[in-house]
């Protein structure tokens, strides 16, 4: 049976982890490669780096991080943040990313989704969607790190990018992100019930039951979490054992 995936996500700024973990055996809590190696050893199913480096001049710092991670972690690595065009994707893949996530650039130019999927394969292209509930049970796509509202309906948009060749959708609830009040399972369900590609749930995890709800209520294929892992509240192993105890298929 296909397993539900647990994906720790690291925000990387100028090649350093933001809000890093203080694992006991970590020499440098700001080094994303070291943290990735630990998550890999703990049984993470995939890894995700989100580059939040403000200046594009400093983006190359991420490439070195990607390269070193790929040399040490033999699980899929998704990299996103500031991906604008095919050259950006090509560079990240060349340095060792397995998947590249595209956010604002796909909204600005929907053709990029098809071009990227045709060139690198659907399996490589993740479309990241930042969603906010604007009217009850209606969600709009936001861009530029959530600062800019569009008039695009999230479910319609997810369907469109899936048809154009996106292999997966990384769906973040802006309403829940950072609140630790659980995933927006209504949003998740609205998308997973209509869209035929895997959906990664993101935004709002605060405890173990939130993860279970994301699968049972949101019907997500994978769960992305940052802070619950970074601050050492739960290990990947604990999360998986909890899900397994609740009859969710996970890779142990």
């Amino acid at each position, binding site marked *: *049976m296909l397993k*539900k995936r647990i994906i720790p996500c690291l925000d990387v700024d100028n090649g350093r982890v933001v809000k890093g973990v203080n694992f006991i055996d970590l020499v440098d809590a700001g080094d994303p490669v070291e943290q990735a190696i630990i998550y890999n050893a703990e049984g993470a199913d995939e890894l995700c780096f989100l580059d939040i480096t403000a200046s594009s001049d400093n983006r190359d710092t991420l490439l070195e991080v990607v390269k070193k991670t790929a040399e040490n972690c033999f699980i899929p690595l998704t990299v996103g943040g500031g991906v604008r065009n095919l050259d950006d994707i090509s560079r990240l893949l*060349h340095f060792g990313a*397995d998947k590249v996530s595209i956010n604002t650039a796909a909204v600005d130019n929907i053709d990029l989704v098809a071009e990227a999927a045709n060139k690198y*394969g659907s*399996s*490589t292209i993740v479309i990241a969607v930042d969603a906010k509930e604007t009217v009850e049970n209606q969600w709009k796509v936001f861009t530029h790190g959530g600062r800019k509202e569009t008039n695009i309906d999230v479910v319609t948009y997810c369907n469109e990018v899936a048809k154009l060749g996106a292999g997966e959708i990384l769906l973040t609830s802006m309403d829940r992100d950072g609140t630790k009040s659980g995933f927006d399972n209504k949003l998740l369900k609205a998308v997973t019930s209509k869209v*035929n590609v895997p*959906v990664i749930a993101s935004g709002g995890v605060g405890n173990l039951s939130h993860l279970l709800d994301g699968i049972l209520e949101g019907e997500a294929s994978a769960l992305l979490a940052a802070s619950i892992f970074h601050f050492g509240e739960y290990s990947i192993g604990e999360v998986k054992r909890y899900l397994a105890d609740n009859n969710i298929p996970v890779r142990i």
Partner: protein
Amino acid sequence: MNLAIINFGSGNLHSVHKAFESVSLDLSNPYNIIVTNDPKEIQSADKIVLPGVGAFGDCKNAILNIEGLHASLEASVIKNKVPFMGICVGMQLLADLSYEFGTHSGFGWIPGEVRRITSPKEYKIPHMGWNEITFSDHKLFDNCEQGSDFYFVHSFYFQNQKNEHSIATTKYPDQITAAVCKENICGTQFHPEKSHRNGKKIIHNFLEWKP
């Protein structure tokens, strides 16, 4: 010993290279691993790996567009029986035919066709993530446990014409070929380079394989 990883512009070459390098370095006699599309280097290789992500037709065309590449692969693998491993689309290319975005001919090294996965609506496509495999007795699965998980990501699968060429299967929900083998030619639908410890076992076994 030389191991050639074929570079025809496919995406995750770096991942494949690093995984094979990492496993090889643990052997008493590590391989000299080269990433290449040079027919001369390919013909001097003792083992050949063909990775592949993307669409079948694009991968096939990319290979045909590199002068001498296809011919050197045929010479090594078919004529000289050099051990060969295809990964994902690199494995599907072994088939006679694929129906991905039109109809495309493959290498025709292992009889069968590449078809779209048909599954009930609750099964998302691509088949993406960790899934367990059942395998038959084969060197490639030495020290592996039945039911262990490997990382898959694909929307099409290899329908073998002969059961004997399918050496491992997975379920989504119907049975899907997870690995193939015919004489010196093997291939995996899953990505050993992304399948953590289990994947490293497969790579190790391939490096030690003497078909």
